């Protein structure tokens, strides 16, 4: 075993994570290697010294001070319940939004809405009057057709759309 491997084993042995066989191998190396013996001693010492000798108690009234602070902050930001419900509220709003959207898409009234006068005149072969006159006044046939197309495309009833 070389010193590098011995050091890896040393580090593992600090956590008691070295199995019996490897421990014996490490021991054999340590017995003939003063430099690794030194490392072993240093690691052991550092491990002992790194811990505080004693851990003091928290300052008095730890719990009372904490609960008072919580109460105080709960008042200024009653976030706890809020955050909990906010998550649900967002999900709920989204659900409502989509249901509502779906409702609009799927439950549109089938009955055609009342036609405007112009639409009636333009699209049902009645005598055009009023604003329709301006369309029919167009001198160029292409212009007239375009205006009629635009006036009719909005209608959902395909049969009533204007086709030149």
């Amino acid at each position: 075993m070389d010193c590098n491997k011995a050091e890896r084993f040393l580090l593992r042995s600090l956590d008691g994570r070295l199995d019996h066989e490897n421990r014996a191998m490490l021991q054999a190396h340590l017995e003939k290697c003063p430099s690794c013996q030194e490392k072993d001693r240093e690691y052991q010492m550092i491990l002992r010294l790194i811990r505080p000798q004693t851990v003091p108690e928290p300052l008095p009234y730890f719990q009372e001070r904490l609960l008072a602070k919580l109460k105080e902050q709960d008042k200024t930001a009653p976030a706890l319940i809020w955050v909990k419900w906010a998550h649900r509220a967002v999900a709920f709003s989204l659900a409502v939004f989509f249901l509502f959207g779906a409702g609009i898409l799927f439950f549109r009234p089938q009955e055609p809405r009342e036609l405007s006068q112009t639409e009636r005149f333009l699209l049902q072969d009645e005598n055009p009057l009023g604003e329709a006159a301006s369309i029919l006044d167009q001198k160029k046939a292409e212009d007239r057709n375009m205006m009629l197309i635009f006036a009719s495309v909005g209608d959902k009833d395909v049969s009533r759309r204007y086709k030149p």
Partner: protein
Amino acid sequence: MDEKELIRRSQAGDGEAFGVLVERYRGKVFSLAYGFTRDRTSADDLAQEVLIKAYFSLPKFKAKSAFGTWLYRIAVNHAKDFLRKNKGRQKEISIEDVGEQTLTAENKSLEEKRVEEGRRQIVQAALARLPEKYRVILTLRDIDGLSYEDISGVLKLSPGTVDSRLHRARRKLREKLTGRLIRQGGEHGLQ
């Protein structure tokens, strides 16, 4: 009352239930905080901050990890903030500070304690100068004694990474200390 129930009630805003959880965990949180700060008042502040943060974050706790692990994760994050804020305030402790003193029979054991405390401060100062990730893992493992599994949960690291990082941290710390502790050990020996 079992922990799950206490957590559920605390999540619903029951301060008393949270009080019971605090009683169970405050010791661990405080000693972890003390491991990082090495100062009673700072550790107290830090522990309070951690528990307040935990209370207000409870709605987000999904029980994917154990409550203790989750709490430790909050504590480590707060401790990192603390260490960053206090970086540079750590006083450099030299061997001279720890000092030599002529030994007489009656003050020998007192002197031994003093030397031991001096060495402890040297280790502490070296630890404070390590990169944060090494400092954190050494505090969790070698100071606070968390298991590899717990550390892996708290830091969200694979067990293999915990292993290699911890070993690298110990090597770095020893490199910083080699020579200093030995001289410091002086005639009292090292054991």
